[in-house]
């Protein structure tokens, strides 16, 4: 079960994992060690609750992350953005949406692949933002032309 737990942690965004993965694993192990003597029924209930909690938590973390940095899809100023920057942002958004969908459908292997894909897309976006100037195109307050 511990292996399944660690695997499910991979579904979370990297920032969440960096911040909480160690602590979550430790809390899980403490709870597991204390309750395991209670028998098979407890084991099944506990495992089910933990795994579904992680899946829901991962989906929530991705959604929160997406909401935290909105990029206006139909901004009037978008015409001023270089096309490759618009496409890179769309690629990031599409990767996140696909990953949330995969998590919701319990396709964890696919979600893990999409997580890597999303990381690459985000890195590409970051490089493009640097190329065109972060202040001008990547600012959270909007796009200034």
């Amino acid at each position: 079960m511990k292996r399944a737990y660690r695997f499910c942690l991979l579904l979370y965004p990297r920032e969440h994992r960096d911040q909480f993965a160690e602590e979550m694993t430790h809390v899980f192990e403490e709870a597991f060690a204390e309750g395991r003597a209670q028998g098979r029924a407890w084991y099944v209930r506990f495992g089910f609750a933990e795994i579904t909690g992680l899946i829901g938590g991962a989906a929530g973390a991705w959604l929160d992350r997406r909401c935290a940095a909105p990029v206006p899809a139909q901004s009037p100023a978008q015409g001023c953005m270089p096309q490759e920057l618009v496409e890179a942002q769309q690629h990031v958004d599409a990767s996140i949406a696909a990953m949330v969908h995969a998590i919701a459908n319990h396709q964890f292997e696919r979600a893990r692949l999409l997580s890597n894909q999303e990381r690459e897309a985000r890195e590409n976006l970051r490089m493009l933002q640097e190329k065109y100037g972060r202040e001008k195109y990547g600012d959270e307050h909007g796009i200034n032309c």
Partner: protein
Amino acid sequence: MRHVATQSASEAKPLTEPVLLILTSLAAQPRHGYALIKDIEVLSGGRVRMSTGTLFGALRRLLEDGWIERYEVEDTTRQKQAYRLTAAGRRHLQVELDRMKHLTRAGFARLKAAEAL
């Protein structure tokens, strides 16, 4: 301006059960993750056994909103991090408890009125 609007919207919105339980648990003293799970189980009379996914999802949001903060104690490791309420978190908990008190009073008053008929 946008920030102010968001603040008032979040203040007006009732807290979710996990958030209410976490804030209530931290109202007494700082606690780390496993202590929170155990205390919440006691607080809810054994009804709620919070999973780590739910707990840390809520803790992350509360940290981002500034309602709780990490609490440094001598033996704190990365694996065993304590959390405590901030002034903002305490205020939000107070508002929510007042709202619930008001609702409970109104509910009992109406039940009593219906029985009297």
